[in-house]
């Protein structure tokens, strides 16, 4: 570790334990002033814990933290903030019913009694100065994620932040908004703020960061590594560990598409829906997915991808048209009947729609079976626990026991629980909505492999992703949505320019 006055932040031998699990073990890092530092690692490597220790949200069991050569108590947010340390959370910590102005105010330190208008004017000025395009009287719950993030960053900057930590800021952003975020981060660096970015897309790391720190399994692998001397390959080897990375490289090349069976898994005819809460209404959508085919859906968010999923899942009103699942008309079927006929969904929001975070794993896992059974069928906890245990083991989920709450799992493991539930042998059509969002390379690769395997077993797969690289990588065919209409269909080799053009017309 480099001892130098130029370090804004140092920590020595930090250990954090939750029960018997060590989230961080003897981590010692120093960050140099005025640079952009990336912290990378797999899900569960301790990145978020590290960020929270720095911000004072978590008290380390042992170790010392120095900010600006001043020792911190640890576990004291006020002191950390007073020293200029601010954390922007992955799932934004803004109360939904607040207006933007109120959300800024409640963490600030100025003012006694305020008037609503005065408050809005005051913060509007601050937001405008930072170039955040939002009205301060808007409610938090009405804002899209990228704006929420901008608001959180703006809030972090109100009190003269010197040291800004962004926890997986790109996980919720589309590629375009990611670039905007990076632009903002670079501006902050210009103005003298030291920035830590917790990231897991390595391309992004190399694009933005000056140094990178690698964590694996709660331990420090190496820090700080200058980004000039490293490439994606070396970095991913460090993140995953040497041996594992070999396997990963091999598996990426494996299994091209196997002979496609002629059956259709999904057939949508002239489907139009009413206006949906989560995006554009569908108009006249025709879509066929063959068994054993992965159809990728591209499009800028909010152009009907979510509505399509909700229409297939019987969650939005259908105006006209028909939906066939395995040649069976399911337009009038309920969600549960559709599931009984082989529909499986890996939903957009894994922590909201996919899992009940406050329920144990085995309940989360066995619920699908019960939904497909008669309403009075008895729950057999013992058998379910056992079945859940065997299945989660098979899917390589890291957990301590099946009674632990789903909310205690890391993102990648939570997604694996959903995969193991939704990708059973009776699945005929799997809808995978942003299944790799927020996952690290290891877990992403796992999801891809699973989808390919399901495809080879004869499942039709509808794959929605905002990451075009990923989409091109695993889809057999890509369709593009624009304002609720299917505007393009592309076969490999995919031409990013053509597909991009089809997506962008949305803005014209």
């Amino acid at each position, binding site marked *: 570790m480099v001892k130098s006055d130029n370090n804004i932040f140092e920590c020595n031998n930090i250990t954090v334990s939750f029960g018997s699990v060590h989230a961080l073990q003897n981590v010692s890092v120093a960050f140099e002033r005025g640079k952009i530092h990336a912290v990378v690692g797999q899900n569960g490597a301790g*990145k978020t814990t590290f960020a929270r220790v720095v911000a004072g949200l978590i008290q380390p069991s042992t170790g010392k933290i120095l900010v600006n050569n001043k020792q911190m108590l640890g576990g004291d*947010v006020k002191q950390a903030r007073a020293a200029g340390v601010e954390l922007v959370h992955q799932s934004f910590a803004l*109360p939904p019913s607040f207006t933007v102005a109120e959300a800024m105010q*409640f963490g600030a330190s100025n003012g006694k009694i305020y008037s609503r208008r005065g408050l809005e004017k005051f913060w509007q000025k601050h937001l405008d100065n930072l170039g955040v395009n939002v009205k301060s009287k808007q409610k938090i719950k009405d804002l899209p994620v990228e704006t929420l993030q901008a608001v959180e960053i703006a809030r972090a900057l109100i009190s003269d932040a010197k040291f800004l930590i962004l926890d997986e800021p790109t996980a919720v952003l589309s590629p375009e908004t990611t670039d905007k975020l990076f632009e903002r981060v670079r501006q902050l660096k210009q103005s003298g703020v030291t920035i830590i970015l917790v990231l897991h897309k390595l391309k992004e790391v190399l694009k933005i960061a000056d140094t990178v720190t690698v964590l694996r399994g709660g331990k420090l692998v190496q820090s700080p590594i200058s980004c000039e001397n490293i490439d994606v390959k070396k970095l991913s080897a460090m993140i995953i560990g040497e041996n594992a990375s070999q396997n990963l490289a091999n598996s990426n090349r494996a299994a091209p598409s196997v002979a496609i069976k002629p059956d259709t898994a999904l057939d949508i005819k002239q489907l139009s829906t009413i206006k949906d809460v989560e995006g554009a209404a569908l108009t006249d959508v025709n879509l066929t997915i063959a068994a054993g085919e992965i159809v990728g859906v591209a499009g800028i968010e909010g152009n009907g991808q979510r509505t399509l999923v909700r229409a297939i899942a019987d969650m939005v009103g259908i105006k006209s048209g028909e939906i066939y699942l395995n040649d069976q008309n399911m337009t009038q079927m309920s969600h549960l009947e559709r599931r009984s006929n082989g529909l499986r969904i890996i939903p957009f929001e894994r922590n909201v729609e996919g899992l009940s*975070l406050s329920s144990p794993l085995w309940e989360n896992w066995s619920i699908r079976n019960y939904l497909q059974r008669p309403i009075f069928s008895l729950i057999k906890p013992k058998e379910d626990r056992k079945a859940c245990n065997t299945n989660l083991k098979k899917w390589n989920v890291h957990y301590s026991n099946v009674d632990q709450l789903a909310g205690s799992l890391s993102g990648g493991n939570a997604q694996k629980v959903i995969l193991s539930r939704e990708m059973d042998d009776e699945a005929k059509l799997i809808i995978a909505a942003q299944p790799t969002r927020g996952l690290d390379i290891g877990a992403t690769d796992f999801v891809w492999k699973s989808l390919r395997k399901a495809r080879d077993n004869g499942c039709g797969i509808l794959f929605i992703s905002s990451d075009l690289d990923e989409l091109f990588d695993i889809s057999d065919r890509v369709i593009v949505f624009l304002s609720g209409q299917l505007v393009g269909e592309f076969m490999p080799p995919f031409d990013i320019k053509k597909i991009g053009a089809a997506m962008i017309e949305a803005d014209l």
Partner: protein
Amino acid sequence: MEEMIIAILRSATPLIYVTLAGVIAQRAGIWHLGLEGLMIVGACSTILGIVLTGSVFYALLLACLFCILGSIIFWFVVEKLKANQIIAGLGLTGLGLGGTTLAVEAIFGTPAAVNAKFGLPKIGYVFGDIFGAFNGLSILVLLMPFVVFGMWLLICRTRLGLQITASGEHPFAARSVGVNPSRMRFIALMIGGVLCALGGAELAAGSLQIFAQNMTAGRGFMSFAAVIFGASHPIGAMLAASFFAIVGALGIRAQLVFGDDVPHDLLLGLPYIATIFGIWLSAKLRGGAKAVSGFDELRD
């Protein structure tokens, strides 16, 4: 008409005080079902205070003291012992209802109603004859609009209010700016304790000068309903509480008008029916009441 307004003010004021206590607790993330218990403690200790000390000031002080004590117990059980709020709240209510009866019996040897020689000072007594027909109302009625306004300022126009609200709505957000949600709940419950004491005092010593077993008769729960109906906004909750009081007053009026044509019990039940209707209406308008989002995630 004047009589009607006076009757409504009389029955609405205790409700409004207690409702405000519920509002600030709700904001901080606590479903305060102990309101009924705190209210009757406030009523009982006011009357006992007047009887035993002969001073209204000491009586009110005593009421505040006991209600704050009750609130501290409630906070400790909910925040430190992590008990379920609903159960703990109902427990507090039970403690209040039983404890007051016990206190009366312990002091006077009989559970019968306790009469005080005088009640809270009347408006006319303090300010002279300037309010005409309203002179006979207690000063707490006059104070009520100011307290509502003060609570509105506190909750909707100060940073403390925002921090209290954030602690209830998104504790993690509160924590991440260095606010301790548990402390905010403590502050909210203490303020609520004082408000419940005032509500109870007005009920027992405002126009009456008597304490009887169970005299709150569900008003605490009605206040809680007003919290929900009023969207836990101080003004909204005040309007909701007033609405219940108006329905109650109309019920009494209707008894006089209809006599025996309409069953007497049905008219007495009107406020309670209005409560159910109010809750239904608010759920219809705003979606069901939101539970506390206490799921503090601490993971990667």
